[in-house]
């Protein structure tokens, strides 16, 4: 049943639900609505079952401690772990905020509630006599929370220098210095230039990330960096900075797989539900990955040649579109029609995909049209290309999602920003039993917040490296804990 309950942060749109639930509470609806609308310390969570509000949690955060004002589940829905789940959601938020203790009062006669809190790790501190209006005593309970680590992550695998500081799911800063402009004149990323810009920019980015987060290096609990895959010279800059900081402050050093980072960017918008299918699509990678648990990656399909993003960039280049080409093709395709007949790549009966045949066909087509002096309708060609390339990908996504009976599909990597891919997948999965997620646009490209998110899970499992660790430009995600 818990599966079908929808949990959400309350907004003023939930006014009706508040009135309905408040009838069974010691609180007036207006007090709760005030918490939702005006009280910056208050957090209100609701649970709905088939459109009916069934539970509420109202808690306050003041600096590093929290108080539960209301936790209530309708009679009919008790013993379904609804309260436990509400508390779990609260713990995550408290971790984001660096809260260390939670306190609450419960009526002495309310044994089921008291038992729930004891099970949740609350300790009885004292009895507050005559606490309630009707004269009943209150039991005062407190739980200490292990606060989530403050993680500083560095991403330098390609053409963005990024440093992020996070606590659990809260991004305190995520500074990205993009080199795109500098690489444009080369029509793509030039590795040595990328390395040079990383070493020139990295401390500016670090300084900005610390200032924006109002954090000092001494406060950081762990230093994470992208170990691969990526450009070796570029990766090395991030490695040395992370290593040096881990050494100076004697804190864990966490190597993170770049693609795992892209997948975990989605964890800023949703809890992961397993099994899930991660569709990793970027300029360097195209992989279909099944995850049955956190940090459990199984590659079920991948490109046998070019990455899809790489194919986009090369087609853009032959059409004389500026770098990065993926964005341009996406934009241009909207103005075109799929009038060009292009070959549909066929790899095999498994879940691998191929893009190089399609790319070669387009390059040859464009060159021969140019030679004949015929006009090329760029918009139509971009549209035709995009339709075929994405069909190649999404057909495999559909098959894998079915075979593994996944609960979620997470799209990850730079190409997750592609509007047509989003549209196709939304058409297929909106209103289905499979949840579809894209990272927020700001986290689609390379960024360090995603590296920090994956590092959080590695931190929990104490997957740390010694100071003699290196980088690996060809690191496989399944080897995420081998370095």
């Amino acid at each position, binding site marked *: 049943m818990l599966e079908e309950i929808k949990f959400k942060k309350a907004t003023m749109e939930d006014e009706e639900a508040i009135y309905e639930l408040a009838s069974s509470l010691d609180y007036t609806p207006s007090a709760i609505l005030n918490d939702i609308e005006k009280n910056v310390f208050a957090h209100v969570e609701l649970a709905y079952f088939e459109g009916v509000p069934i539970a509420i949690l109202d808690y306050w955060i003041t600096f590093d401690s929290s108080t539960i004002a209301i936790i209530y589940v309708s009679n009919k829905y008790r013993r379904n772990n609804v309260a436990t789940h509400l508390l779990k959601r609260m713990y995550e938020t408290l971790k984001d905020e660096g809260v260390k203790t939670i306190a609450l009062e419960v009526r002495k006669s309310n044994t089921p509630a008291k038992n729930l809190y004891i099970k949740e790790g609350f300790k009885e501190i004292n009895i507050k006599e005559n606490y309630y209006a009707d004269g009943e005593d209150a039991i005062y309970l407190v739980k200490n929370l292990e606060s989530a680590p403050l993680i500083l992550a560095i991403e330098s695998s390609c053409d963005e220098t990024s440093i992020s500081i996070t606590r659990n799911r809260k991004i305190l800063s995520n500074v990205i210095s993009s080199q795109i402009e500098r690489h444009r004149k080369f029509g793509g990323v030039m590795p040595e230039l990328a390395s040079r810009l990383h070493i020139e920019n990295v401390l500016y980015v670090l300084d900005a990330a610390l200032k924006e987060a109002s954090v000092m290096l001494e406060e950081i609990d762990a230093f994470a960096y992208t170990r691969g895959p990526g450009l070796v010279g570029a990766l090395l800059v991030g490695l040395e900075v992370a290593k*040096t900081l881990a*050494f100076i402050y004697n804190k864990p050093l966490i190597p993170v797989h770049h693609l795992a980072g892209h997948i975990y960017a989605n964890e800023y918008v949703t809890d992961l539900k397993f099994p899930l299918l991660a569709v990793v699509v970027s300029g360097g990678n195209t992989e279909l990955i099944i995850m049955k648990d956190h940090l459990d990656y199984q590659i079920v399909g991948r490109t046998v040649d070019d990455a899809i993003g790489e194919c986009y960039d090369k087609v853009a280049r032959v059409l004389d579109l500026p770098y990065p080409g993926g964005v341009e093709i996406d934009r241009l395709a909207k103005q075109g029609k799929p009038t060009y007949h292009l070959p549909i790549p066929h790899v095999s009966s498994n879940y691998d995909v191929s893009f190089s045949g399609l790319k070669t066909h387009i390059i040859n087509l464009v060159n021969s049209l140019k030679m004949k002096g015929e006009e090329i309708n760029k918009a139509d060609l971009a549209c035709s290309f995009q339709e075929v390339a994405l069909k190649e990908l999404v057909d495999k996504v559909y098959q894998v999602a079915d075979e593994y009976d996944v609960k979620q599909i997470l799209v990850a990597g730079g190409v997750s920003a592609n509007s047509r891919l989003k549209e196709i997948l939304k058409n297929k999965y909106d209103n289905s039993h499979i949840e579809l997620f894209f990272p927020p646009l700001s986290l689609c490209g390379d960024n360090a917040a995603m590296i920090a998110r994956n590092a959080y899970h590695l931190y929990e499992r104490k997957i740390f490296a010694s100071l003699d660790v*290196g980088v690996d430009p060809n690191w496989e995600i399944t080897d995420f804990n081998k370095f």
Partner: protein
Amino acid sequence: MSNDRYGLLMDTSNIKMFIALCKNKEILVSKNLLFPRKQDELLVPEIKSLLLENEVNVKDLSFIGVGIGPGSFTGVRIAMAVAKTIAFALNLELFAIDSLMGYSNFNAPSIVIFNARSGRSYFACFDGLKSLMNSRIVSNEFALKFIEDHPNYVLRGDLRHLGLDVDTDVDAKSFLNYVSNQERVIDIKGLKPIYLKDL
């Protein structure tokens, strides 16, 4: 707190990893280690053990001296990333020197050369603090001719690509002397390597 000034010196511009620890004007310990292609992995752990062995905490350092190239592009960036990060994080004084200068002998006129590939050499010539020829890239023929014309100069650096059996270590005392005569780097964040090769 004592008034001793501890300093850490490093250079990874060439195939060797040079690290040294100094106290005031004295070199306490120095190492020239040969780790082909492993400098990225081993520089920080080597610094850590160097400090440990000498019972100096990284937070007790007052300054860092680093060779910033020319040399292997990747190698130059490794020492620079480490040096810049320590100096930035701990607010230390940072001194940057030309890596060819770092390999020079402070007490004798020196010709310093590294392999720049494709028939060329990184080349410079120093006499103490005087730079007789600034760092530059020259053809190997020029380098050989210059050496022939200046028999009284000591040869420093790595000259094996010229068919000469010279492959010197960094002389820590000379390195420290050069470092001591530099202005400190004011803009630590903005410090850039010397590549001598444009893209």
